[in-house]
């Protein structure tokens, strides 16, 4: 009884705060402040048509670096928690047979999904999309592969190598920004790498960094899903 009363009290106070916030909210009619700067100068300073990509990879790339570090840590902790013992690792569980249709379709669809994911993160500076979305699509392709063939084992070394090489490369390209550009993770390389606005070879190092981020995110999400799939073997 007391518990329910306390819950109601907490929710009522939250509701009061949110009600006031909602009432005092005035819809914007024009961009102001830092968003206006990004909108006006994003195209000329960074050269990316997609301003979200410009913010994620260039203006606030420290944020992204921290984010991929956190994702790496999460994947590492999950691998540590769900690690199997030797006898669990060798156990084979009998799944129900997947249908012929799914197997055949997955053979056709998985390469297409990988291709689409790569397309999404290579074109991240021109169209909606980018490293995180492309990585999620690649992880979905891995999910489809697991669904079509539940006894499949993903080679762990491939995931580890893709992840570490792309992670190190992001930092190395960031250091290249100190040498050639204005600072760590500067994507413009002193204005030389901008290229023609709106084409695929433009925006400095943004496509390269975002592709590497996409590979890293895809590998990490696949690793998490693979660990969960393997943990089913444990009794």
């Amino acid at each position: 009884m007391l518990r329910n009363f306390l819950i109601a009290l907490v929710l009522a106070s939250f509701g009061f705060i949110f009600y006031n916030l909602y009432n005092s909210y005035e819809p914007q009619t024009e961009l102001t402040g830092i968003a206006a700067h990004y909108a006006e100068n994003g195209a000329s300073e960074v050269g990316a048509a997609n301003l979200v990509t410009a913010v994620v990879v260039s203006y606030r790339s420290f944020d992204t670096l921290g984010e991929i570090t956190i994702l790496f840590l999460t994947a590492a902790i999950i691998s540590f928690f769900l690690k199997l013992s030797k006898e669990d690792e060798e156990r084979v569980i009998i799944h129900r047979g997947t249908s012929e249709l799914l197997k055949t379709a997955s053979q056709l669809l998985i390469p297409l999904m990988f291709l689409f994911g790569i397309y999404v993160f290579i074109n991240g500076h021109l169209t909606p999309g980018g490293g995180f979305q492309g990585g999620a699509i690649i992880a979905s392709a891995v999910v489809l592969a697991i669904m079509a063939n539940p006894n499949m084992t993903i080679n762990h070394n491939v995931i580890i190598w893709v992840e570490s090489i792309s992670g190190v490369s992001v930092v190395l390209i960031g250091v290249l920004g100190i040498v050639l550009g204005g600072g760590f993770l500067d994507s413009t390389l002193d204005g030389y790498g901008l290229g023609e606005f709106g084409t695929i070879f433009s925006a400095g190092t943004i496509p390269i960094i975002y592709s590497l981020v996409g590979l890293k995110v895809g590998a990490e999400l696949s690793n998490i899903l693979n660990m969960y799939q393997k943990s089913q073997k444990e009794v």
Partner: protein
Amino acid sequence: MNNEIIYSVIAIGIGSIMLIMAVIAILNNKLSVAIIAAGVVSLFASVLFLLMSAPDVAMTEAAIGSGLSTLIFFYVLNKIKRQNA
């Protein structure tokens, strides 16, 4: 200007579905129903993101929020069922 009003009406419909699904996710006793309802909330949130002209966020939410996280919930549920039996 007319588009704006149509979008708002669609947003109200989607939002009410989301709220009903969220309440179902919390009140229903079956875990699988709760997980599916949470996935539906994520899916409709991605449509709402698209209406609020945020296509990048909508793509991420559709792939991760309603796809991958629902899947790992079901992995955990399956394992718990297996260990219970």
